């Protein structure tokens, strides 16, 4: 072991070579599918390929700038409401640490360990410390680019406070040093975990755990933001962040995770000398963490990588006799395809996180929002002297009015359509149905496949995951609120019409333009193209809902149609749309797949 440790010295020349290789395109095994790896997409060729690639970059740049502008405005508003620059910096740093702790560990593990090329690096005469630092430099570069999206909150506050240009520079430097420090701290923790933890050596399990954590985080952020942005919520959040850094146990935790965060006040609020001293202190903290990491890595990184290379082998039971007969009994084409697709989706962590957990996120989100809003409403009502039963009775007295000759029901139907449009974000699961198969698709092209059954199976899984749970939530809400049965069934019909037509159109488009040539699953579901596809779902939703929406609006806005006619017509349009889309998906789209070549 001593020999191995001694051989792990750092070489600057090898570091540069490794960094260049890693930046040129290393294959990562990002198993969460949350976009934490850096698989460079294949270089596009041809005019359309270059145009598509260029358009995607422009769109992604636009999205980034949009978010940055939004955060800047939030910071500006904070400043306008009297928040001090240090408080805004505290908010940025606390958010940075929170996000990095929750997502950064997986990110670091993915970059440092789950790399397909790592097995090859092990065969080269390069020290583990050099490999790790080259990877870490790459990781830090990528992380910093992502972390910088939070900085505009602080800068916006500086603008509102009319801060001097020097303060802008020092705040930026302070934020960057905080980002580097927290990432180094994470890697210091991650190296021993990867060396000694059993969980870490099972990549699939590790990915699922982090996928689950990220979904919980998204839920907390989503629900939290609903309440934080109301009133002075954001300002309270900022002052809370400042208190976290003020002292006590939270400050100790923050000091361990991100030591430079404790020096932020000197950088932003003091004079020039104080700022320089603060920045030097921050730099010293980063240097200490880098030194600790070098020692830790020299000891355990190489061993962790070696342990991971040999992990994953499992021995299953022997299946024979009656059990084998049961396990291989005959199914129809739809059931066979559905079973195969479902098993693949659930067993590939990327797909599990992206298509199963994320699909369940929306119903969960609505349930939590409904429960929290209900609790808040009941609490406010009881303050006003109303019991929950009385409140419910009031609501029911209103929903009784939802009859077929009432414009209120038409407005409810419009609301269902708007909700359906919002569900366009999850239509991505349908669009990606065929693409999920990748190279396996071409294996199945050699089989006597029933492509209609294949596509039908691609509809069932996402429909069951995204639409059915929401349907249950809606049905419960309709019953609790006492909506008349016929009206409730009508609204459910509209909801099903909207979601089925949206799913079918998305599935058909995904079948006509599948992306089947990817190296690992994460490539498919992350990055600019995938993000744009999520937003494109809204457009698809708008297309399928345009005619029914016009029918409804022609009643309530323009008074052209009577309410019963508008309601009937919109439902009839959905029925026709769904029938046409079923024919299109099971006919032309299935035929297209049966002829698709590499």
């Amino acid at each position, binding site marked *: 072991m001593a020999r191995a440790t001694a051989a792990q010295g750092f070489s600057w020349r090898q570091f540069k070579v490794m960094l260049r290789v890693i930046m040129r395109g290393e294959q990562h095994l990002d198993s969460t599918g949350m976009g934490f790896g850096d698989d460079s997409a294949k270089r596009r060729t041809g005019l359309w390929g270059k145009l598509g690639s260029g358009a995607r970059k422009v769109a992604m740049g636009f999205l980034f700038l949009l978010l940055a502008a939004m955060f800047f405005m939030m910071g500006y508003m904070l400043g306008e409401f009297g928040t001090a620059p240090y408080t805004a910096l505290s908010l940025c740093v606390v958010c940075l640490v929170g996000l990095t702790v929750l997502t950064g560990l997986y990110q670091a593990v993915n970059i440092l360990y789950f790399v397909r090329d790592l097995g090859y690096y092990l065969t080269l005469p390069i020290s583990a410390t050099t490999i790790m630092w080259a990877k870490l430099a790459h990781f830090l570069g990528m992380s910093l680019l992502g972390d910088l999206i939070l900085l505009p909150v602080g800068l916006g506050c500086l603008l509102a406070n009319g801060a001097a240009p020097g303060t802008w520079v020092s705040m930026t430097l302070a934020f960057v040093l905080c980002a580097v420090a927290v990432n180094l701290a994470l890697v210091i923790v991650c190296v021993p975990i990867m060396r000694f933890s059993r969980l870490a050596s099972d990549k699939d399990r590790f990915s699922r755990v982090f996928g689950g954590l990220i979904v919980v985080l998204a839920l907390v952020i989503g629900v939290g933001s609903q309440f934080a942005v109301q009133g002075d919520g954001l300002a309270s959040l900022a002052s809370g962040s400042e208190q976290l850094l003020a002292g006590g146990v939270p400050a100790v935790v923050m000091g361990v995770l991100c030591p430079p965060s404790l020096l932020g006040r000197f950088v932003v609020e003091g004079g020039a000398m104080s700022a320089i001293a603060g920045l030097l202190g921050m730099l010293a903290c980063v240097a200490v963490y880098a030194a600790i990491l070098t020692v830790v890595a020299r000891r355990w990184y190489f061993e962790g990588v070696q342990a991971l290379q040999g992990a*994953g*082998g*499992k*021995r*299953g*039971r*022997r*299946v*024979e*006799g009656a059990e*084998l*007969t049961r*396990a*291989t*009994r*005959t*199914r*129809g*084409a739809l*059931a*066979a395809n559905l*079973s*195969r697709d479902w*098993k*693949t989706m659930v*067993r*590939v962590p990327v797909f599990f996180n992206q298509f199963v957990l994320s699909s369940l996120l929306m119903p969960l989100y609505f349930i939590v929002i409904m429960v929290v809003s209900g609790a808040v409403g009941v609490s406010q009502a009881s303050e006003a002297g109303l019991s929950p039963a009385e409140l419910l009775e009031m609501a029911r007295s209103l929903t009784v009015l939802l009859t077929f000759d009432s414009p209120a029901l038409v407005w409810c139907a419009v609301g269902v359509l708007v909700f359906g449009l919002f569900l366009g974000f999850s239509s991505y699961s349908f669009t990606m149905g065929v693409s999920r198969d990748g*190279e*396996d698709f*071409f*294996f199945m*092209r*050699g*089989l*006597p*496949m*029933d492509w209609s059954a294949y596509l039908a199976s691609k509809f069932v899984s996402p429909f069951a995951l995204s639409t059915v749970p929401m349907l249950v939530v809606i049905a419960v809400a309709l019953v609790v609120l006492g909506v008349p049965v016929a009206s409730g069934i009508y609204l459910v019909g509209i909801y099903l019409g909207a979601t089925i037509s949206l799913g079918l159109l998305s599935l058909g488009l995904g079948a006509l333009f599948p992306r089947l040539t990817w190296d690992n699953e994460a490539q498919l579901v992350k990055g600019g193209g995938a993000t744009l596809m999520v937003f494109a779902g809204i457009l698809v939703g708008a297309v399928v809902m345009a005619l029914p929406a016009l029918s409804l609006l022609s009643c309530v806005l323009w008074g052209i149609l009577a309410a019963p006619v508008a309601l009937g017509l919109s439902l009839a349009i959905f029925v026709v749309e769904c029938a046409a889309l079923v024919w299109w998906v099971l006919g032309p789209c299935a035929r297209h797949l*049966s*002829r698709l*070549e*590499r």
Partner: protein
Amino acid sequence: MIRIDHVSKSYDGGATNAVRDLSLEIRSGEIFGLLGPNGAGKSTLLNMLAGVLAPSSGTIELDGINVVSNPLAAKRNLCYVSDSPDHLLRLKGHEFLRFIADVYEVPDAVRAERIASLAREYGMEGELDNQIQSYSHGMRQKMMIMGALLPDPAIWILDEPMTGLDPKASWLLKQSMRRHADAGKTVLFSTHVLDVAEKVVDRVGVIAHGELLFVGTVDEMREHFKSNGSLEEMFLELTSDNSPFAGSGEKDHASEKSASATEAR
């Protein structure tokens, strides 16, 4: 029987041909070996036979069924093992075989027995409950071969099937091929391992640059070259730049040779 009639395939709209005006007939009851260097067009040809690729021109018939106009019926009549065994890796062995049996509509009465028998033969009994991704390359190849043999169709098309197999599995596959052909059915396989071709095939076809350079028995090939050398030496001579069949100037001559060789059979 496999009938390939003036088949060409281009991936770039006709600028170049991966397979060029190829005609060949493989009769029922024979094992036909397709030999050729890397990039010769073997996999393209086999992919067209399996219906994965559509020919740019020409027709392919499997037992009288046109692969392009009636792909489903044609595919029910064949099994295809591609040159890569990395498919459906997240399924367990028995799940993969069940999926294949469902797609080929293998009757309930025989499928479990056939799966058990194949697993026993190929030494995979203890592996059926594991995901294919946990298998070694050779085990994955065995699983693909088991999947191909499970429906027991009339025509077997195998692309480099011996790659990665251990000697026992390789021997078993050769035995299966022989039994299949002796039962009056058809086996077509490509290989780089010339010794395998020499020992197993009834007839051999040599393909290079998308053209069929020679069709005949190994003995006829020897006679043609007046050589007592190994198949390897003949193969190298056929596919070398100095070969009388190489180069576009000799294209017609080569086509005539292959056509006459086919007719002579």
